[in-house]
């Protein structure tokens, strides 16, 4: 198979279009800020953004005016507080009104799962007694044909593009991911197009040495981007830690629309790519964020020839 390796610029230009439904997934870990920044730089508009936890990256993209709608389950700066830019959009329509479609975490997980498994709906024990179904008509109930009891269901979610950040992949996009797995596998299989962004490109043989670790197969991948530190300020298990100073800093600066726009200008618009962003960061950051080593115990798959 031909290599799918390309630059982030090419990947976003080829696969993310105005009006697309886009999900940059990753639950607190492996959030591909590099892709979000490139989408802002390329000036995408009218996106429908999906993510369980919009986190700072969607706060930035919404502040930059990329999105018309947000599908989500938890709007927070994790462990810190509010997402001020999204709150401004929802509460006051600044910079523009934002349509929202809201679920619980398990509801979002179930939507991706239904999308990935090509199911018309996915059942879950949730929403009974909650006001959420009153404000989201897509949350419905069906009766079990066995005991007649109702159970909540959600419809499939099939984004146009899903962007996943991981530790390593080969040039075709066979991807090893470890640590928190979030909803990445389900989101990627639900997608029409998949962009995989990795810390390291490796030989196919590295992937084949541990096939149980392959969360995303080349079959569903359209582009592979090598972008070290591409998840900063979030973290990549075994590679770097969350840069909590930035999460705290964003909490301060994003309270004000002017300082928010100034930050976007300085750190995204005026920056060419992730390599330049990494250079612009305090060099000591990477030292501070570097974890110690803790290797998995060996596993023998055996040769059967």
């Amino acid at each position, binding site marked *: 198979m031909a290599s799918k390796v390309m630059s982030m610029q090419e990947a976003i230009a080829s696969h993310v279009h105005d009006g697309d439904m886009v999900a940059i997934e990753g*639950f*607190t*870990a492996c959030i591909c800020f590099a892709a979000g920044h490139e989408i802002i730089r390329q000036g995408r508009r009218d996106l429908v953004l999906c993510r*369980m*936890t919009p986190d700072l990256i969607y706060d930035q993209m919404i502040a930059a005016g990329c999105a018309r709608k947000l599908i*989500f*389950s*938890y*709007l*927070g700066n*994790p*462990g810190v507080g*509010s997402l001020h830019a*999204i*709150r401004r959009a*929802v*509460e006051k329509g600044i910079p523009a009104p934002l349509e929202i479609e*809201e*679920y*619980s*975490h*398990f*509801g979002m*997980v*179930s939507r991706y*799962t239904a999308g990935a498994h090509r199911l018309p709906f996915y059942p*879950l*024990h*949730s*929403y*009974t*007694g*909650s*006001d*959420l179904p*009153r*404000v989201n008509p897509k949350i419905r109930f069906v009766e079990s044909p066995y005991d007649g*009891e109702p159970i909540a269901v959600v419809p499939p979610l099939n984004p146009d593009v899903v962007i996943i950040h991981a530790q390593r992949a080969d040039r075709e996009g066979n991807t090893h991911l470890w*640590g*928190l*797995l*979030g*909803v990445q*596998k*389900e989101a990627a299989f639900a997608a029409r197009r998949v962009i995989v962004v990795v810390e390291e490109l490796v030989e196919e043989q590295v992937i084949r040495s541990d096939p149980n670790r392959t969360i995303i197969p080349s079959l569903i991948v359209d582009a592979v981007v090598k972008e070290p530190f591409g998840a900063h300020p979030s*973290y990549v*298990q075994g590679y770097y*830690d*969350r840069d*909590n100073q930035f*999460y705290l800093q964003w909490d301060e600066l994003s309270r004000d629309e002017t300082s928010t726009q100034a930050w976007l200008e300085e750190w995204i618009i005026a920056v060419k790519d992730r390599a330049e962003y990494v250079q612009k960061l305090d060099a000591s950051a990477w030292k501070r964020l570097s*974890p110690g080593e*803790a290797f998995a115990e060996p596993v023998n798959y055996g040769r059967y020839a």
Partner: protein
Amino acid sequence: MTHYTRNEMMIVTASRALAGTRTVFVGVGLPNIACNLARRTVAPYLELIYESGVYGARPARLPLSIGDPTLVSDALSVCSMQDLFGLYLQGGRVQVAFLGGAQIDRFGNLNTTIIAGAAGSLEEDYARPKVRLPGSGGACEIAIQAQKVFIIMRLSKRGFVDRLDFLTGPGHLHGGDARDSLGLPGMGPQLVVTDKCVFVFDQESKEMLISSLHPGVELSEVQQEVGWQVQTAGELKQTAAPTDEEIHLLREELDPQGIHIG
């Protein structure tokens, strides 16, 4: 006896409620410290479950969020969120879950979605909220599915309200056998730990009752911060103060930087 803060009092009280518990669904912040304290005191076999996909975490530092890498390193198992919510929570494997919220009512129903403006209808208030809160996260299904729910919230009139602006996670709904009649698998809220007192729920009516006051707190102080006429559960007790050992564990081992206990 060592002097202690209100947060320390809350944490210690919550940790003691976990005596004998095997599995707890943990949020970050106060519940995380309470659970780690319980492991060292009243619940040595307690396993911590995080919605991010972690079972049996052994955090080497205070996690910064519910998905901190320190929760993964040295955990017993790390799985997808589909598995975590499906196999652990919905599978009925979670004995106790901690929840909190911006608003709670007398039946332990929680709101983490919006603070309403003046629009008047739920749908309009939702569309144009005065304050947009984080939303459910996992709270809606946790409230429905966990065997027992323990709530940690600071006592305040803004929080303990007569009527929620939005019902995000169901407690005992309108009370009585409301949960059972809707077939909700979990037993719902069993305990509300605040910085001033502890509430339990009446067996029949499922209404919140003051069970004990923290040392030095007067009943009127509690009444004043609750938006409905709250009753007591039999004879009012005093919450047992933290022991020196508990305070020592909190300050020396669990939160040496004083981020949450201060």
